[in-house]
């Protein structure tokens, strides 16, 4: 892990209580979809883990919702302000295998770029066509995933669920990538009335693998409804965000797992709903 200073390029309200934050740093960034960064907000004790929506050559795009004092303080920070992010060193274990006997872990080569925390999605496991299912701000990490899938030549369809029309975000950004986007709203104001599972039933997209991020009940319904391999991004209150405080452990089919370090992305079979 490492701490890195980022500068706020923009911090804009893009939907109801929802902000889009673009941060730049000195040096290359190479974050995979499903990973997160842990932001220190001045005046607040613990960092805020926020999943990465896009990885820029020297920065990140994040979406966050104002739900409490910490995120309200973050929303008030103007462009030019600096934030300290906990990230992972882009430590490529295949290129630089760890030596268990070494006395000191050197910093990885600078040109590998800064990585995010946690495990990412596995776009390479999709054979031909992927279905991305987002609930609310769960849409955010699916944007980077869509970019990765398209770069691998896979077809991508997105189904995004929101409570109401003014909460919709990332629809246009995904469409700009050429991804067909289907919307479900609980109040029926846009797209299919109901849940993402209702929209999937209506649209009947072809896919061999699905990826989902959103509220737990929504992901549970998605995993129950879809008969295909799938990956789930879990959310939990975190302490350290980096795997050593065991504050975010959940029980899974393969035993206790830390959401921050072993996840946040898990195979759907792992999750004990």
């Amino acid at each position: 892990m490492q701490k890195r200073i980022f500068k706020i390029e923009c911090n804009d309200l893009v939907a109801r209580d929802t902000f889009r934050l673009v941060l730049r740093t000195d040096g290359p960034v190479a974050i995979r979809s499903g990973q997160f960064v842990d932001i220190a907000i001045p005046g607040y004790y613990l960092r805020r883990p926020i999943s990465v929506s896009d990885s820029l050559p020297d920065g990140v795009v994040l979406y966050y919702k104002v739900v409490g004092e910490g995120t309200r303080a973050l929303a008030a920070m103007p462009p030019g302000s600096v934030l300290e992010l906990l990230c992972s060193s882009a430590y490529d274990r295949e290129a630089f295998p760890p030596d268990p006997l070494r006395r000191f872990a050197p910093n990885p080569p600078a040109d590998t770029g800064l990585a995010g925390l946690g495990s990412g999605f596995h776009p390479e496991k999709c054979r031909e066509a992927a279905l991305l299912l987002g609930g609310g701000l769960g849409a955010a990490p699916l944007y980077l995933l869509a970019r990765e899938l398209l770069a691998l030549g896979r077809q991508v369809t997105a189904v995004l669920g929101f409570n109401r029309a003014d909460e919709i975000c990332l629809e246009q950004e995904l469409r700009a990538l050429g991804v067909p986007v289907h919307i479900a709203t609980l109040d029926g104001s846009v797209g299919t009335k109901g849940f993402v599972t209702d929209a999937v039933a209506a649209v009947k997209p072809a896919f061999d693998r699905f990826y989902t991020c959103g509220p737990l009940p929504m992901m549970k319904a998605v995993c129950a409804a879809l008969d295909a391999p799938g990956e789930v991004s879990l959310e939990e209150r975190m302490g350290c965000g980096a795997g050593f405080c065991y504050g975010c452990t959940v029980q899974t089919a393969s035993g206790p797992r830390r959401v921050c370090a072993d996840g946040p992305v898990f195979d759907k079979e792992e999750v004990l709903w």
Partner: protein
Amino acid sequence: MVAKDLSVSLCGLPLKNPVVPASGTFGFGLELADTMDLNVLGGISLKGTTREARFGNPTPRIAECTAGMINSVGLQNPGIEALVTDKAPALRRIYDGVIIANISGYSVEEYAFNCARADACPAIDLLEVNVSCPNVHGGGMAFGTDPQSAAAVTQAVRAVTRKPVFIKLSPNVTDIVSIARACEDAGADGITLINTLLGMRIDIRKRKPIIANKMGGFSGPAVFPLALRMVYQVAHACAIPVMGCGGVARAEDVIEMMMAGATAVQVGAENLRNPLACPEIVQALPALMDQLGINSLQEIIGIVQ
């Protein structure tokens, strides 16, 4: 600047400096081996261990507070056998400082069993017996809030190990000195204090506790004055050394704890907001010592009467 001597001696064990990550805030050390040179740390107190593996408490286990946090991890750990056969030996291979096993239990017999297993593990240098975990029922803190039961645990573990035994005490008591003295009389080599304070937060939107287990251990800079007061009281009432713990976040706090009587100083919650807190504190100490006219940390231990 004159070369500064950061070393301290804890029951005959040399520590290159007094900075020790506190149990539960640093995993088994291995989790941070890629992040820092562990060998800059005077010692490492490992995650609290019970006889059997434990999942711990349900989530949420973490709640933020002003100048601190509440945790209710509930002693998630892989069990004593994993500690002595896997975790501690693996850390020994990459770390040359003092390795502290933090031992928990649900009965006097379990404490003794776990300490006997840790005693037989050459990778472990010192035993820290946790009679103060606020997050488990029927164990932990129940043994550390009364002088007789704290002494009973101390006596039982003393009988099964020749390694230095520190008893980690709870601040959730009315008379910390009587409990520390009972441990000393029962054969403890040292006292670690304080563990966390029992605390609680409520999510006012959901109208329910943030922590799934309702309450948890409160720690962070907010508790530092209370921890310092207890370190001062115990260090001046007992002849055995004290490891000071509670709200330590900066090199200044380390010096203050030592002046109050701590021989070594543990850093806890701060690791969770800054995983590099311990190496940063170690790095900051020489310049601070220079400002304060301190050449050797040994000379300031308990200097405040």
